[in-house]
C-alpha cells in the first residue's frame, strides 16, 4: 500500500524495488552464486579447522554449518539446491585423479588384483545381506508391535 502511495506522490521517481527483487532472485537462482556460497562455507570451515584443534575434516564442519544455517532459516534450500546438485552430480570428476593413482600400484596386476576384487565382491555381498536383514527384522518386529 505504501509503495503505491509513494509512487502517486512522486510520479517522476523510479521505484527500484521490483528491479532489486528480481536481481536478488536472479542471484539466488544462479548456479555460480550458489557454488560460490558453498565454496565460501568450505573456506570458512577450513580456516576454523586450521585454527582450532578440531578432530574433523573441513568438509564435515562445513556440512554441519550448512545444516545449522538451513535449520535456523538463514538460508533456504532454494538458495542452495542448484549449487549442491552441481557438486553432487559432478562429484565423480573430483575423484578421477585419485582413481588414476592406481597407475602407481603395478604390484596389483595379476593375482593380487584378483584377490582384492574377490575381497571387495564378497564384502559387498556381506554388507548388502547384513544391512538388509537387520533393517527388515526390526521393521517386521515393529510392525508386529503396532498390530498388537
Amino acid at each position, binding site marked *: 500500500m505504501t509503495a503505491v502511495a509513494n509512487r502517486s506522490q512522486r510520479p517522476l521517481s523510479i521505484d527500484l524495488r521490483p528491479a532489486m527483487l528480481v536481481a536478488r532472485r536472479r542471484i539466488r537462482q544462479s548456479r555460480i552464486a550458489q557454488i560460490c556460497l558453498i565454496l565460501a562455507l568450505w573456506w570458512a570451515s577450513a580456516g576454523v579447522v586450521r585454527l582450532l*584443534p578440531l578432530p574433523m575434516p573441513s*568438509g564435515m564442519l562445513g556440512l554441519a554449518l550448512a545444516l545449522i544455517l538451513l535449520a535456523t532459516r538463514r538460508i533456504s534450500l532454494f538458495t542452495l539446491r542448484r549449487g549442491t546438485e552441481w557438486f553432487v552430480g559432478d562429484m565423480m570428476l573430483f575423484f*578421477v*585423479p*585419485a582413481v588414476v593413482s592406481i597407475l602407481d600400484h603395478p604390484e596389483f596386476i595379476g593375482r593380487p588384483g584378483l584377490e582384492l576384487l574377490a575381497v*571387495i565382491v564378497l564384502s559387498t555381498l556381506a554388507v548388502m545381506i547384513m*544391512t538388509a536383514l537387520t533393517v*527388515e527384522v526390526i521393521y517386521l518386529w515393529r510392525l508386529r508391535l503396532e498390530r498388537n
Partner: protein
Amino acid sequence: MNAINAIVPSLSWSFATIGIYWVSKQIYRRRRRIWLMPIAITPLILIVLILCLHETYQGYIGGAGWLVGLLAPATIAFAAPLYERRAIIRKQWPILLAGMIVGSLTAISTSYGLAWLLGIEPAVRLSLAPRSLSTPFAMAVSDAIGGIPSLTAFFVLVTGFTGTFLGDAMMSWLPLRSALARGAALGMSAHAAGTAKAYELGFEEGTIAGLVMILSGLLNVAVASLLRMSSGQF
C-alpha cells in the same frame, strides 16, 4: 621460462581431465552402457595418455590433484539432500542407525579380515576398510586410520561397480518386504551406485539409499576422527 615449463603441463593435465570427463559424460548421456560410465572411462583414457606420453603419476597429480580437493566442498553439498529428508530421519532414525552400525561393522570386518586371510599388506587392508562409503567420506576415514586415501578411492569405485552388478540379483533373491530394507542395503553397500540402483526399484528405496549413504559416511568419519584423537595421532 621455468615457471612456464611448470605451468603448461599442470594446466594441460587439468584440462585433459575435465575435457575427457565432459566428453564421456555427453556420450554416456546418449548411450547408457556401464562400460561407458565417465568414472570408468575417464581414468582409463588418462592412464593410457600418461603412459603414452611417458609422464609419471606424480607429474599428473601435481597438475590435476587440486580437483580431489574439491571433494571437501562436495561434502558440504550433501547438506541439501540431508535437510530435505529431515522428516524421514526424525521418523526412522533408530532402524536406519541399527542398519548402518551393522552394515559398517560388516564392511570393515569382512574387508579387513578377508584381506588379512589373503596376506594383503596392512596399509592396503586399512585402505579397503572404508570402501563401502561414498568417496569423500571414505577418503577421510582412510586418512584418519592410516590407509592410502587415493587407493581407497579406487576401491570405492570397484565397490560401486560390484554393487551395480549384484544389486538386482540380491534384491530379487532376498525376501525383503520393506522398501526401507532394500534402500538401506543398497545405499550402505554401494554408496552412490547403489543409490542409483535403488531409484530404479522405486522412489522410496532411492530416497532411503541416498540418506543411508550420507549418514553412514558421517557416522564413520565421526568414529574414525574420534579414534584418531583418542590414539593421540592427531
